[in-house]
């Protein structure tokens, strides 16, 4: 029986060569697109993942649960400079917990910031990461190339500038920045206002797995970063208001504010030409208290970057950590690397979803085209199917015959498409693409992009092709089964 079906299906495919070719080419092209496209997307996602996880987010980023946008590139802070990145609460406790977990490979607490740079008369800007240098290098092993100088050392003041920051300053007509030069860093925070720090340039580096976002990053020692961010040991006391000042807080009643008698006497206070003799050198008064606000808090951290042990499922690890925070009443939250990577990485992920939607649309269009062609083919064979039914062929036989026919076309051409897709991806992978702009570079996860054939993409495309085959045969089968043997033979 099966042999008969196969023979008939093979004969029909061969008999309608043109139609078979049209459907086949469409299927092959669709599958080719699917294999190449998904391989590209998977390779880009892997590149992006590698760039971020291995350079600055780790697998998991822990922050205070008050932080609305956990992006380590401070997307939220950039759009609202008045806001500050909240500190991780109970940080030492979290460190002890992480140290005991087998699923955690390494972790590193960090601080982020943004500074204006002045080198002589030249100006620039850089985002800053600050950390304990040894611990950082324990988590992010060998991820940078030092172009000049050395990396930060624990307890030593200084900055390691990104080569791109230096390049931007020099390209703006600035003088060359050398290791050992002193540069002024200026940053603003809500507690101590504008802070200026003079620091020596310790080195100039670039990330091995470069990306436009990473190029904005320089590394600064912890003390200076905490001073610039206003991360103080002593909390700034609340505003001390006079009685008059307190009266003007809250809702203002204009009638009582302007309720004094009319005329100068009501609104204009005693005319005064002179506020007395000013002692210009004692204007600040007692300055001893301000010393309290110069000591930084060594336990103040904003981000905890966690690298997981090999094979650990990140989602499960995030869930475990967040449950532990909840159980212990700690207002911290673990986020995926993608949340920590910020807007650009998320955009790349969104593009993948858009691409998959496009593929789905193409698949639907493909199904309709194949279905139509098959319906025409079935209509042409009304007499033949009618005769088969008249000489005793059951409905299930006709159904199997058409389904098998469709499946044969889709699988044969699907495999051809998949093979072509694999070959094209492999060739393109050998040649490689150079990203022509920063945006593409972020999407591709690096400067040069080498797509790799994605096994999951091939499997997915074969499943889709099978689905298309079965789905596309449903309607033609129902058309064929409606054919009455008597009518069909009469038409013949």
């Amino acid at each position, binding site marked *: 029986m099966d042999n008969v079906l196969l023979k008939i299906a093979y004969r029909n495919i061969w008999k309608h060569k043109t139609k078979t070719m049209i459907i086949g080419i469409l299927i092959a092209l669709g599958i080719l697109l699917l294999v190449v496209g998904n391989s590209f997307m998977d390779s880009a996602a892997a590149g992006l993942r590698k760039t971020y996880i291995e350079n600055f987010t780790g697998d998991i980023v822990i922050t205070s649960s008050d932080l609305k946008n956990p992006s380590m590139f401070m997307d939220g802070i950039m759009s609202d400079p*008045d806001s500050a990145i909240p500190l991780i609460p109970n940080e030492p406790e979290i460190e002890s917990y992480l140290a005991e977990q087998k699923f955690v490979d390494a972790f590193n607490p960090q601080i982020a910031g943004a500074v*204006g740079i*002045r080198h002589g008369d030249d100006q620039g800007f850089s985002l800053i990461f600050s950390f304990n240098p040894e611990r950082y290098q324990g988590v992010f092993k060998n991820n940078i190339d030092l172009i000049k100088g050395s990396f930060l050392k624990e307890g030593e003041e200084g900055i390691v500038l990104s080569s791109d920051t230096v390049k931007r300053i020099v390209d703006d007509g600035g003088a060359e920045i050398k290791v050992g030069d002193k540069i*002024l860093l*200026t940053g603003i925070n809500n*507690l*101590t*206002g*504008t*802070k*200026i*720090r*003079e620091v020596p340039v310790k080195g100039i580096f670039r990330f091995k797995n470069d990306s436009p976002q990473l190029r904005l990053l320089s590394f600064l020692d912890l003390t200076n970063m905490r001073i610039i961010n*206003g991360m*103080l040991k002593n909390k*700034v*006391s*609340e*505003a*001390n*208001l006079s009685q*008059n*000042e307190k009266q*003007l*807080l*809250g809702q*203002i009643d*204009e*009638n*009582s*504010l*302007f*309720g*004094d*008698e*009319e*005329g*100068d006497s*009501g*609104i*204009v*206070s*005693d*005319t*005064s*030409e*002179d*506020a*007395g003799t*000013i002692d*210009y*050198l004692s*204007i*600040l*008064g007692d*300055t001893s*208290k*301000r010393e*309290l*606000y110069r000591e930084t808090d060594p336990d103040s951290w904003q981000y905890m970057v966690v690298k997981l042990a090999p094979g650990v499922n990140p989602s499960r690890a995030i869930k475990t950590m967040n449950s532990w925070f909840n159980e212990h009443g700690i207002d911290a939250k673990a986020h995926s690397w993608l949340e920590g990577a910020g807007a650009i990485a998320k955009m790349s992920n969104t593009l993948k979803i858009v691409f998959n939607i496009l593929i789905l649309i193409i698949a639907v269009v493909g199904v309709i085209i194949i279905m139509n062609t098959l319906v025409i083919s079935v209509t042409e064979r009304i007499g033949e199917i009618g005769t088969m039914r008249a000489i005793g062929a059951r409905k299930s036989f006709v159904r199997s015959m058409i389904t098998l026919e469709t499946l044969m076309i889709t699988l044969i051409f699907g495999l051809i498409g998949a093979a072509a897709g694999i070959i094209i991806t492999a060739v393109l992978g050998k040649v490689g693409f150079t990203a022509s702009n920063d945006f593409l570079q972020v999407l591709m996860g690096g400067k040069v992009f080498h797509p790799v054939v994605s096994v999951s993409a091939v499997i997915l495309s074969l499943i889709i092709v099978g689905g298309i085959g079965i789905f596309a045969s449903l309607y033609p089968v129902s058309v064929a089964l409606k054919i009455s043997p008597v009518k069909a033979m009469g038409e013949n």
Partner: protein
Amino acid sequence: MRKKALHILFTLLLMAGTAGLNALTLDEAHDILNTIDESRNLTTTDFSAVMTMISEDPDKGVEKMKVQQFRRDDKDMFLMLFLEPESKKGQGYLRVDDNLWFYDPESRKFNHTSMKDSFGGTDAKHSDFRVLSLAEDYKVTTITEGKLGKFSVYILDLEALNDEVTYPKEKLWITKDTNLVLKSEDYSGTGRLMRTSLYPKYTKVSGKYIPTVMIFIDDLIEGKKTQISMTNISTKTLPDTIFTKSYVERVNR
């Protein structure tokens, strides 16, 4: 019928009365704007004062800042030294001509910005930020009279003459006798109220009225408000050394 005639007569009398009261012409109203500009202008004398700024924010709570101001407007010089909070004490901004320095007493370092430099990476320059003039930048569109608390005031509606101003429309409440601005409302081009400013206290120094208490209410964010008060106001000539970097350093020793 008689009742109706009486009603018309009463309305006409009322209109005549209002017309008589509304004696201020648009030109005269514009002159008031000139007077207000003039009183704000302190180019003939030095000026020093302690400015206390208290800002209320529904998210951030109450913050207080106290700044010692020294100004020599005709030479484009000013020095502002933070007195409060303690965490900012001694920080200062010094301007001399086109140079603006910020001083951080903790590091004892100055950061220099040229007023000719672009402002925050935009096309705007620091020097583009000139002092706005009510008389030059606005025209009076309507004049009404009213009361603000116990004060009889002219209420002027202003419309901007150029797009350099922050607010395209303004409304001012000005005392009739002394031409002091008691209140102003700033509107967007679409007529949305953006900010309300109140000036309940003034002092008279060298013949000029200077507001000593100012309240700025943000009408876009409920509960956001800033009150500014000025004390120790003086127009005595200041020593030239005040407007120098070395003074800023010395005062911080």
